[in-house]
């Protein structure tokens, strides 16, 4: 009877540890921002999906979002964005990060990101994200300092003036442990 109790205790502990080792993205808001002398435009998607696996003290996260789910409120502009970033040829933005599990409990998470976008892969190191606990869920928010040149995107122009090279991407992701 005693040994059965120990087994149950261990099994519960293992199950609990396993549960906290997997994360699923439940809510997301990803927003690109472009600046032009006569325009400030944002496009947002809420269609990102993501998973995180943690083991041996490290975690691997994967977040992906289809490019055609970004909306700036103007379909003409959204189609132009899709064309410019080669969105039909490379329809997904894929972000990968690998970080120590201990980072997940810090108020500010510093992540090294690998981003596949527009047929290019760029790496951003030490990107800061604020972390907020909402019950069991964790909200991660921050800005990725992306640029057009990082992904070899020909900057669109209006009245012969191109947009700024900087296209910061604001992310707000809510993760649920499983």
């Amino acid at each position, binding site marked *: 009877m005693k040994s059965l109790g120990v087994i149950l205790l261990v099994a519960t502990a293992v199950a609990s540890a396993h549960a906290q080792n997997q994360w699923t993205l439940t809510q997301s808001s990803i927003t690109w921002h472009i600046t032009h002398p006569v325009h400030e435009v944002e496009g947002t998607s809420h269609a990102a999906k993501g998973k*995180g696996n943690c083991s041996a003290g490290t975690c691997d996260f994967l977040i992906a979002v289809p490019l055609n789910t970004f909306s700036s409120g103007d379909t003409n502009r959204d189609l132009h964005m899709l064309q410019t970033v080669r969105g039909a040829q490379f329809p997904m933005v894929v972000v990968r990060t690998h970080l120590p599990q201990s980072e997940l409990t810090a108020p500010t998470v510093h992540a090294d990101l690998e981003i596949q976008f527009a047929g290019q892969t760029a790496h951003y190191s030490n990107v800061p994200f604020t972390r907020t606990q909402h019950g069991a869920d964790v909200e991660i928010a921050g800005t990725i300092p992306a640029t057009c040149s990082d992904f070899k995107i020909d900057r669109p122009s209006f009245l012969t003036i191109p947009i700024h090279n900087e296209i910061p991407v604001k992310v707000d992701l809510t993760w649920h442990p499983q």
Partner: protein
Amino acid sequence: MRTITVQRCATALTGLLLLSPFAVAQSAATATPITTTASSSEIAALPDAPVPVASQSAPQASQPQTSAPQQSTPQTTPPAQGNQPSLSDLGFSQEQTQANAQLQARLNQRTHDLKVHQTLGLITLAPLVATIAVSGGATQKHDRNTPGATPVEPSSAGVDLHAALGSTTVAMYAATAWYAIRAPKIPGTKPKGAIRLHRDLVWIHGPGMVLTPILGAMALHQENNNEKIHGIASAHAVVAWTTVLAYTASAVSISWPLHLKFWEHQ
């Protein structure tokens, strides 16, 4: 001289009549749109993501490591390595993740055609403004201080210049419309935002571009017959101004809202 001008106008109008109804109908159908999952009301309701503190204090910390990113092949689902989740774990449909070269080609062609459309549309403003500027030289002058006096006829040169610039405007308008018409449509997209007003205004300036020269030719014909301009021909100026305003509004609407920040460095 006037007879020759009337003939020129009639020739230009014949060409316009062949082009314009098609242009008007097709331009409206050109409305370009997109598939979206988030409505603008949803976007408006969202709070801004907090700006990371560390990015302000140490902006160099998050610069990309590689200045020359690697070229990758069209997206497929890469296999998971060890503990890493894979794209196939996320539950996207194959349609969402599959590269579509044909669609990319259509998007490229669409962008090309609409860039030409935009350029021609802006250039068309020049003869349009010039036509208005010289319109005073193509109308009868009445001496208001002498009631009953015979109106002073416009010079042939003034009428010819106005007609030539008007014809140029119409021809360039037709070319502008043609590039909007031929731009490939992207299936599954619904027009939203400024493009809707830009497209809807076609129903005003399109017929206006057809009617204005017709009414101008009618007015000129009446003048040549020493008649006072009467009937529908007297609406030439009103129709022309309505067309100009609708066309200008259409050009501005596609860029609306404007945020002037010329003083900022790029």
